[in-house]
């Protein structure tokens, strides 16, 4: 465990000294500022908006705009996770940074675990901080609070942790640039699947919905995100619920304990694959 702790610290120092934190903090503050403005005007003008009968305008606006914030939180977290891990193995090996570490008596598994925990240690607090900050902004501006407070944030953090693990696995095989592109494409593919699911729901196409659901499980990042969206309106029913499920930023319809358990199993699988590949890789 001595080696794991040292590598975690090494990863955190790397992020700190390469000014990753400073850039992320600046961009996040910009996002939160814009988000506050959006909330302020959206809820100020809410009384003037005519909505169809049966729809709760405040719930609709609150969950939709907060869903947008959740997407932004996920995206920023994914960017952070990818940049912290894309070059962890092959990229660092090609630059000559990895070899001096690997020949120390800590074991490759400790090194990989340390890099993962270092990335997760940065990404999880970040995602939770942005998630709760967004929630407070929407709650104070619009007097709307999600039906579930903590679970959606944890699911977003879980999705980002999954991306970090997938990116570490990719870094064993791919150069940093190729890995970055690949992971963004995987993330994008998940989002497209989610959107297709929304379209299938609107058109009442079970085939499209089923395809989207399968895709969401293949890339559980999307399944977790959808479940998180579903959680913020878990107690909303009727027409409002149906409209929100049309998405893309409202309540979703893939979710439950199965998704969370599958995500944990998926993380373990990706971790085992990464470890197996890394221990066999020539550097």
């Amino acid at each position: 465990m001595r080696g794991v702790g040292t590598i975690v610290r090494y990863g955190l120092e790397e992020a700190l000294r390469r000014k990753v934190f400073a850039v992320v903090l600046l961009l996040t503050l910009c996002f939160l500022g814009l988000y506050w403005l959006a909330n302020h005007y959206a809820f100020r003008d809410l009384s003037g908006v005519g909505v169809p009968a049966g729809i709760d305008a405040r719930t609709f606006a609150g969950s939709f705009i907060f869903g947008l914030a959740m997407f932004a939180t996920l995206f920023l977290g994914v960017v952070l996770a990818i940049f912290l891990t894309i070059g962890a193995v092959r990229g660092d090996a090609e630059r000559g940074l990895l070899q001096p570490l690997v020949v120390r008596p800590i074991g490759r598994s400790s090194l990989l675990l340390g890099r993962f925990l270092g990335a997760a240690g940065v990404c999880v607090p970040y995602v939770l901080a942005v998630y709760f900050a967004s929630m407070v902004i929407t709650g104070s501006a619009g007097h709307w609070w999600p039906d579930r407070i903590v679970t959606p944030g944890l699911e977003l953090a879980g999705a980002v942790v999954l991306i970090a693990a997938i990116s570490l696995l990719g870094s064993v095989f791919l150069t940093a640039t190729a890995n970055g592109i690949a992971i963004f494409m995987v993330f994008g593919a998940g989002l497209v699947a989610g959107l297709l699911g929304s379209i299938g729901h609107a058109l009442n196409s079970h085939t499209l919905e089923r395809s989207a659901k399968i895709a969401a499980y293949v890339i559980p990042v999307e399944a977790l995100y959808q479940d998180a969206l579903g959680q913020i309106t878990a107690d909303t029913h009727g027409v409002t619920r149906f409209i929100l499920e049309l998405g893309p930023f409202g309540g979703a319809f893939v979710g439950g304990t199965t998704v969370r358990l599958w995500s944990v199993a998926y993380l373990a699988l990706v971790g085992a694959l990464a470890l197996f590949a890394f221990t066999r890789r020539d550097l």
Partner: protein
Amino acid sequence: MPAALAVSGLVKRYGRVEALRGVDLAVEEGELVGLLGPNGAGKSTLVKIACGLVRPTQGGAEVAGAPAGSHAALARMGYLAELFRFPGWYSADEVLRLHQRLSGSTGGEAERTRLLELVALAEARDRRVEEMSKGMQQRLGIAQALVGEPRLLLLDEPTSALDPVGRRTVRELLESLRGRGISVLLNSHLLSEVELVCDRVAILLDGAVVTAGTPSELARPRGVEVETDEGTRVYADARRDDAPRIVAELVAAGRRVYGVSVRTSTLEEVYLDAVGGETS
């Protein structure tokens, strides 16, 4: 006592390319062995297998009796890669501290100070790596390899970026390491340096050891050269034992002899003979 490094029947294939073809090599305790060969001969692959960075296709390597790459083997060795880099934002002291933590060294600040002094970087202790010259980084790399007092040092081109003064520093360092019983496998293109410091030399060509021995064993007699009042005469077939007779004959013939030297081939000539002029 097992050898500091024992390599037997080592084969490494990268797809169709055979980088090593059954290499046997041993570095005994306190021995300094030079590894020579043209580019692509398999020198770096051999060193990487010895420190567990590359897996052999066949055969094996052991460090002080422990399989290469195992925890026990890694705990006993230090390594400087041919192409290495330290994080630019670290200072020299922080690099050594990181490696102390990774190797479990309890040497603390005293060890870091001693190592930085050994490689003439004591004044640059707090300088960031990104502000160092390539030569300084290479010396820091050597200091890093010595963290934790390894019994075996694997150095892959440790002087390639050094100026003559830096090379001399490293040469003196290697000699002092030998004096402390530390074994060294030195992979270098600088033949003069290898000739000066190494106890034994192995020359690799196309993944196989083609010549091995001490520098004096490898050196072949190339005659006796005598400087007389009529100029310099070379007796190409003569050996060291023939020198007194040649001088006596010349003096008897009325010549004045000013100097005699027994000529042997240099390591460079041995190397060129072994590799047949191959460069890559």
